[in-house]
């Protein structure tokens, strides 16, 4: 419990840092947000521009602006979108988050369930055929741009074989499908996006798991366990595997920003209405309030992911709680 309180307290300066950097990014724009409204409007005169600037507080010194902005941030008020719909940014983000989280969580499950066995088998049977082949695939995997992989999969499974739909989240006739049909429909649409978003993680995690496991197998306590005459299965699964798994939990937290950031690419390619696609659209339209909102929320989600990983880690490894 004390551990938890301490961890959360530590998050506060980081959160403030996140807002400072976001604010700095916003201030990088040449001119200011009002120029978007005023530049193309022939009725604008000096006086009106001044009034708008005053209305948005842009005539105040930057630290006053920052504190004001921070105050809004604290109650999740990101202002209204510059897009034609002019809705509050937080509403737009809120309706997009679930699908992005859903895909990311599924891809994380995929990453773990595939790469952990691969890593373990590679390490236990080091230099075997399996190890060599999987290491080669992992190595190539590191160099594959995910959007290219997405294109190739779309060509193969979408266009040539016509097995999977290449865009969207559900079919046009979705409403008329039976409940089971609806689930299958969404599933079919999500196969490629989930695989693509998991791909980078698959390579990274397999390799990480393999080197962890190799590291652990070299430890004295494994030699001891073998010397005691335990059979190899028990040594590998009870003694080595559990210890090799620990650092993976940290990686779980560390992979959150990558997954969320990657959602821009796969959601744009597969036309999935999630946060990544919204971000991309906002960038293209220079919808500054939405960009800022997603930037801050994306970083905050990462922070939460790290916190969850820390909690999980301390639960799995009592040494952390004692030392901290």
């Amino acid at each position, binding site marked *: 419990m004390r551990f938890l309180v301490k961890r959360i307290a530590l998050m506060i300066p980081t959160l403030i840092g*996140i807002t400072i950097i976001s604010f700095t990014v916003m201030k990088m724009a040449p001119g200011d947000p009002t120029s978007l409204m005023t530049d193309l409007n022939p009725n604008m005169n000096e006086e009106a521009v001044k009034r708008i600037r005053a209305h948005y507080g842009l005539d105040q010194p930057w630290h006053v602006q920052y504190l004001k902005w921070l105050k809004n941030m604290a109650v999740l008020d990101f202002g209204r979108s510059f897009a034609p719909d002019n809705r509050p940014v937080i509403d737009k983000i809120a309706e997009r988050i679930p699908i992005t989280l859903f895909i990311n969580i599924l891809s994380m499950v995929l990453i773990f369930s595939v790469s952990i066995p691969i890593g373990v088998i590679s390490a236990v049977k080091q230099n075997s055929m399996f190890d060599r082949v999987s290491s080669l695939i992992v190595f190539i995997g590191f160099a594959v741009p995910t959007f290219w992989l997405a*294109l190739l999969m779309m060509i193969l499974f979408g266009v040539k074989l016509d097995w999977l739909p290449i865009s969207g989240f559900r079919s046009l006739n979705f409403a008329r499908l039976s409940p089971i049909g609806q689930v299958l429909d969404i599933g079919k649409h999500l196969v490629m996006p989930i695989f693509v978003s998991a791909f980078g993680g698959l390579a990274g995690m397999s390799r990480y798991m393999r080197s962890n496991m190799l590291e652990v197998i070299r430890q004295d306590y494994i030699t001891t366990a073998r010397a005691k005459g335990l059979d190899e299965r028990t040594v590998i699964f009870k003694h080595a595997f559990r210890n090799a798994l620990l650092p993976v939990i940290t990686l779980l937290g560390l992979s959150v920003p990558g997954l969320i950031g990657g959602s821009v690419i796969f959601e744009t390619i597969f036309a999935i209405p999630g946060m990544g696609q919204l971000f991309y659209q906002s960038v293209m339209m220079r919808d500054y309030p939405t960009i800022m909102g997603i930037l801050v929320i994306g970083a905050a989600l990462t922070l939460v992911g790290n916190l969850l990983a820390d909690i999980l880690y301390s639960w799995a490894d009592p040494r952390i709680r004692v030392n901290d």
Partner: protein
Amino acid sequence: MFLNEDFVRRIGKNKMAMAGLCMVAFLFCVALFENELAPYPPDRIDTSNILAPPTYQHLLGTDVLGRDVLSRIIHGAGVSLSVGFVAVGISTLLGVMLGALSGYYGGALDKAVMRFVDVMLCFPSFFLILAVIAFIGPSIWNIMIVIGITSWMGVARLVRAEFLSIRERDYVQAAISQGASDARIIFLHILPNAMAPILVAATLGIASAVLIESGLSFLGIGVQPPDPSWGNMLTEGKDNIEIAWWLSLFPGMAILITVMGYNMLGEGIRDSLDPRLRR
């Protein structure tokens, strides 16, 4: 110093490093002699030959304007290499500076820098890069700078750790006790001995910068058409995905080969520097 004979000999023996070096050298040659190598000018439009599949005339086919895909890929090599080098130059410079200060002086400065690193790592890097580009506008220079200032954190941590450990070595302590200036100790005694891991990180960094650039260009926020870049060629591939697979396949392979070349070189160097790390 890291560029001694022993180092060169060990890298020379490392198959992975050598294979990577060959691939990178090949790319440099392609970029250097792009005009001689490309069968056609990269922006020559040929309306009679639109979206032609690979043939002897156009080995990798043509695009929507009848431009030769092979020639455009060859001309994209230079963009890719320069973005990689400049971006990594920036990030390495930043990372070494902050990491060195932090590791050498320690104390409050160290705490502040490491906190800054933590905060930067919280941002999904693609979000941060896209946001900055949205505010300052897409251009090849902006991309290099933005990739540079969003990817220095790993180097900073690494350099800090090196400084912390090298600082305690006898020869550094001896230099300190002789009253050498901080700058002298940092640049003459510590930094040269921390060079090897920095070199590895920079090589691997180029690979990831190339990947990021191609992703940005693919999304239309990177190198702008008509300038050929592998990323924006893939955008055309996506737009014609149902009819022209060659527009998607070949530019991606160019990215794959480049990134693999740098990864092999980087990991090969690491393995030959530190045999303990060999997997």
